């Protein structure tokens, strides 16, 4: 590829990015610290000032345990910069558990909303507040309008939203709304842990996370490990999620498809 062509491509990419972000200030990214995954994400990390959708398979739709743990790990570096708000519908979130994962519970305000619409409005309000860096909400479904409103709220103060898809009280699934304003969508399930050789019990929690949708980036599937979980040692400022390099399972190899999602 000639330099000229590369230059043209870069210029066009920048133009498209400017259209996509509709001229708003770039609020930065949160890199995972591993080129395998950062290369898939636009800007080299999890985009901040946007909102992200996290779902889980099977029973996780009701319990949302693995998505909650994964979200707490994603949001932990943000919670160190400001306050975090977790909007619940069913108040079964256990703060000591979050603390074990490395999420600071003293920076977390929990809100229990009475219904879906209230949960979304509380999220919006929290996202637009000075001093709040991350807002996590547990919502069953979000349509295009609600998603767009969340996005506008995120842009007000460059706070980052995480939306965990959860049907907290079971029941019939609502019809899936087509399209979404989310920056990324992850599908997260627990994965078997591997304790260090010669040790009993469980190893650090592992998650199989598929990046199903990513604006301006590529999709992929990875195996993460929460390396600092249930450990007294203070982390050294790196991302609490580590990409597990050795994959026993072929299926989990990072998807190399160059398919770009239409944003």
């Amino acid at each position, binding site marked *: 590829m000639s330099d000229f062509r590369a230059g043209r491509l870069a210029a066009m990419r920048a133009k498209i990015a400017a259209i996509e972000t509709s001229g708003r200030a770039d609020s930065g990214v949160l890199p995972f610290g591993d080129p395998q995954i950062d290369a898939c994400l636009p800007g080299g990390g999890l985009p901040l000032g946007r909102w992200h959708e996290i779902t889980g398979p099977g029973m996780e739709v009701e319990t949302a345990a693995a998505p909650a*743990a994964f979200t707490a790990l994603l949001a932990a570096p943000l919670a160190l910069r400001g306050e975090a708000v977790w909007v619940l519908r069913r108040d079964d979130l256990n703060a*000591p558990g979050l603390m*074990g994962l490395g999420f600071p519970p003293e920076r977390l305000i929990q809100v229990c909303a009475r219904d879906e619409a209230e949960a979304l409005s509380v999220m919006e309000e929290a996202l637009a507040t000075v001093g709040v860096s991350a807002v996590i909400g547990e919502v069953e479904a979000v349509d295009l309008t609600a998603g767009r409103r969340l996005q506008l709220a995120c842009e007000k103060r460059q706070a980052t939203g995480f939306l965990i898809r959860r049907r907290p009280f079971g029941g019939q699934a609502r019809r899936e709304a087509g399209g979404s304003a989310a920056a990324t969508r992850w599908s997260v399930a627990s994965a*078997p842990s591997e304790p260090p050789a010669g040790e009993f019990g469980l190893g650090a929690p592992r998650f199989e996370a598929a990046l199903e949708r990513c604006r301006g980036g590529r999709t992929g599937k990875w195996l993460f490990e929460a390396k600092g979980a249930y450990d*007294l040692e203070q982390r050294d400022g790196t991302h609490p999620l580590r990409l597990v390099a050795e994959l026993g399972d072929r299926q989990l190899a990072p998807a190399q498809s160059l398919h770009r999602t239409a944003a």
Partner: protein
Amino acid sequence: MRQLFGVSAEAARLGLYVGQKATDALALVPELVTAEAEPDADAQALTALVDWCVRFSPAVAADAPDGLFLDVTGVSHLWGGEPEMLCDFRSRLAKSGLPFRCAIADTPGAAWALVRFGEDGTIAPPGGQGPLLAPLPPAALRLETETWAQIERLGLRRVGQIMDLPRAPFGRRFGQAALTRLDQALGREKEALSFRRPPTPWFARLAFAEPISAPEDMARVTADVAAKLCARLEAESHGARRFELCFHRLDGKALPLGIGLSLPGRDPVRIAKLFAPKLETVDPGFGIEVVTIAAHAVEATSGRQVRLDAGSDAALEDGLAPLVDRLTNRLGPERVWRSVPVESHVPELSVGRARPLAPPPQAEPWSRETPRPTRLFRRPEPVEGVIALTPDDPPTQFRWRGQVHRVRRAEGPERIGEEWWKGEIGDARVGHVRDYYRVEDVEGGRFWLFRAGLYEADATPKWWLHGLFG
């Protein structure tokens, strides 16, 4: 036995009196009209009247069964003086059709005496209740019936005569209580009244020439009355955590609304905004004539410099505190919280809920080393089909919500006993323990299971799922 509970003036003229047997009264006056006494309804009506009186002064105390005290210290100037205030009070109360008597004096005791035994509408000049009380009978001193009857039997028919007596022998003869009552009436001793609302000097009121009822008017007067109070708070560098707004309707009903702040505040715009969603619950009826606002939990807050440095404090005051206030007032205080450690080893008791902006508690933080689930069920869910080696091995298989999980890795047991020192010692049992296991199934799901009770050879142990690690 049926007795007369109260008599009208006309009945009293016919010789009927309180406490008389109903049959005797009917024999004396066959055409007597009686109604059942309803002490509970009377008490409720008195409470309603007390609430109505808040429009005159924030400090109103009910004096069961049939009286009430209004502390008008420092409020009468709003009417232009005590006589004008009493006049307004009388004209408004007369509209309700209630028979009443009123008096103003320095002390509750003197006012009580003047109302019941003096001339209706007496206003005792400051420090001048002595001469006014002197001609009244001893019963005016709020004494026990036996005490004043005995005083009268000794020929002391006037309070003035008692005032002239040497104190020590009088006290010995009739008890300390009688002396206290005398001193309270004359202002030589303080008397505490239990006011319906805690008295607060932080009080503002707005009265309207014409009653209002439109929602936008109510919103405007809310802002106005809040601004009036907040200007005073501002001037004295104070802020309050709770505000109580009260709409007084034409028909005498008082409709209170309350809001709370997480940090002491005095921004009228913010306060009016918090009240705004609650205004629609107020039914103005035929109109609202007075609105009052009182501030509670008032603290000194230093005025802060705005926007000189955008530090974290500024963020707290500008962003987080209003957010928490809005959510707390909209959803209720029990729905917005911060989890704080409580020193207990029982998992469900180790998490307390604190107000989001309260200072952190002194309790030891949770241990990071002992794994606790991300989701902790409020009630543990039963699991069935548990295959586990007795006595202590973790399960190798269990069924939860109809799904079989084969355990691949497990940790445990972690034995957690009950907090026997908190209950009756007789109720404590050695068997009240839970053995917790952290297990992982072949798919990777991590669960927190426990076996209830100690192992017993002949009983099948009961297993429960208490949480999910995810």
